[in-house]
């Protein structure tokens, strides 16, 4: 096989991985602070994708432009979900949280089925089929935009947590729950903010992914699973980890597809996950738990 095939596949894998990473970022933020594993993560993303589809069909609004308002809607959704439903569960055992979010996921999937029907939907952005050619390298335009946007969103989030008072307060909650209570932080509100931020992240990711993939009500669970794989690989709770995990999984799947059979490529992703769990359970970028 000519060498440029490897290059093309590798670049494609890295870009897809970045978008996967952005989707997983939200999961990581939520777990890092609230310590709840969001089993409805992929389903929340499909909500954002359907909002984007609706806006595009009705008003011809580009998903990349609508990214911010849609992220805001998802933020509100996440905030309310945390305040109304999840808050009582943060001290409950994992299986209890798991069941709660599985129930939420079932409801989301089927409400979407009822309202939007089962057929795959997408948006026809003018640049949907563009690609850039640089020598032998062909780069998919939507993937490039999405990959860049993923880096921007991740950086913004990182800056928020590092340099704002609110971000510092949230990190304090994550590091020491009781301590945060003692110094008088409104932990419930901060948790809800965090869940909202995580939801906003996945909402933004949904807008970009819509340019690359179609949405059906049933795709949610698959994305939830993918987000897990990435986040655990990169390090649960670590923001750069989510992006690096995404890139690693994207690249692994791409190369495995090229070198072996594409139908078995997810096996390699799960294989990496198992290896990471065993040899570096805190993930590539995660801090060793004390």
């Amino acid at each position: 096989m000519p060498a440029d095939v490897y290059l093309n596949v590798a670049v494609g894998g890295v870009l897809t991985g970045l978008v996967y990473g952005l989707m997983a970022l939200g999961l990581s933020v939520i777990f890092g602070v609230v310590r709840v594993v969001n089993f409805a993560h992929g389903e929340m993303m499909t909500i954002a994708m359907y909002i984007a589809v609706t806006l595009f069909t009705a008003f011809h609004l580009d998903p990349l432009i609508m990214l911010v308002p849609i992220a805001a809607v998802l933020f509100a959704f996440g905030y309310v979900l945390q305040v109304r439903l999840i808050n009582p569960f943060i001290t409950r055992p994992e299986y209890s949280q798991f069941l709660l979010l599985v129930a939420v996921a079932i409801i989301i999937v089927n409400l979407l089925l009822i309202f939007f029907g089962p057929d795959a939907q997408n948006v026809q952005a003018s640049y949907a089929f563009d690609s850039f050619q640089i020598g032998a390298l062909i780069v998919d335009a939507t993937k490039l935009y999405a990959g860049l946007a993923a880096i921007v969103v991740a950086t913004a989030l990182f800056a928020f947590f590092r340099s704002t008072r609110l971000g510092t307060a949230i990190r304090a909650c994550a590091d020491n729950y009781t301590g945060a209570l003692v110094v008088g932080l409104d932990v419930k509100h901060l948790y809800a903010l965090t869940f909202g931020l995580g939801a906003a992240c996945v909402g933004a990711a949904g807008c970009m992914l819509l340019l690359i993939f179609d949405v059906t009500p049933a795709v949610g669970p698959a994305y939830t699973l993918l987000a897990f794989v990435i986040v655990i690989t990169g390090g649960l709770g670590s923001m750069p980890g989510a992006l690096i995990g995404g890139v690693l999984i994207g690249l692994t799947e791409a190369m495995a597809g090229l070198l072996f059979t594409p139908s078995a490529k997810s096996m390699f992703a799960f294989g990496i996950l198992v290896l990471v769990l065993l040899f570096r359970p805190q993930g590539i970028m995660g801090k060793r738990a004390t």
Partner: protein
Amino acid sequence: MISTLIEGVPRRGLALLGALLVALVGAPLLASDYLIAVLILILYFAYIGQAWNIMMGFAGQLSLGHALYVGLGAYTAASLYVHFGIGPWLGLLVAVPVAALASAFIGFLAFRFRVAGVYFAILTIAVAEFARVGFDHLSWTGGSGGLFLPVAQFTHNDLWHMRGHPVMFYYIQLAATALAFVCCRALLKSRVGYFWLAIREDEEAARSAGIDVFHYKMIAVVISAAMTSFAGVIYAFYYNNLFPEQTFHISRSIEIILGPIVGGIGTLFGPILGAALLTGVAETLTAALAAAGIDLPGAKQVFYGICLLLVITALPDGVWPWVCARIGLGSRKK
């Protein structure tokens, strides 16, 4: 032996349990075929729920990949039958060790490398998904094209080859569930059971008390997987066809664990009650929507999800402990 099993169980509890067993044994005399089909499903999920509960409810290890053991049991027994004509009961002698070995492998790696909590749960998902894609490519078992067993002729019941009428499967499943119930009770009353509970409550404390935590967690995982694989064997011979997508899929793993969580984790009767409630609610919702003239695909699942939400919010410990308190069965561990 029997006296230790029933020791400490209120009389009323024993009487109710006996009545339930009699009712279930007699059910095929009165129940319609449809009801039998639903009861088989309930017993099937109750049985696997029991098996899963050993790992989670007793020893505190959250597995989200139990479909792996169902699938391994199903595929091993079915392949032996299709390729070598070896019947399910002999096949069990291979299927159970295969599932037990797989679980021992996962358990060994996980506990050796101290993978715990959410991470352990994700590890179990990963291995099950790995197996799903792997079986998709295993041509000896039909790959993604599916494995088809020669179809049962329903003229007579052949228990030895598990070919026959659903009522036969009903009794096989009922016996398995009853046996699992008794085994779980025995395990819980044994030394192992006490160590499990100690590990579940506080692993570090158990370790410092001198319990070989690794050893006892391994026992829980292996027993749970071995029991689950038997359900897989029944599944294979009841449906007569297997597809990796349907057998190993994560949605199957989730289905398995809903029952025991709703019923009451760590209780003996919880998985049975949970399975009955969930299957019952699903069937009732279907019937109710049909009666109301609502033909809206997805509506049933929305209501089902709301029911789950209500139960887990209102009764975080599950339905069975709540029922116990209501009907005056003081002991939660019947």
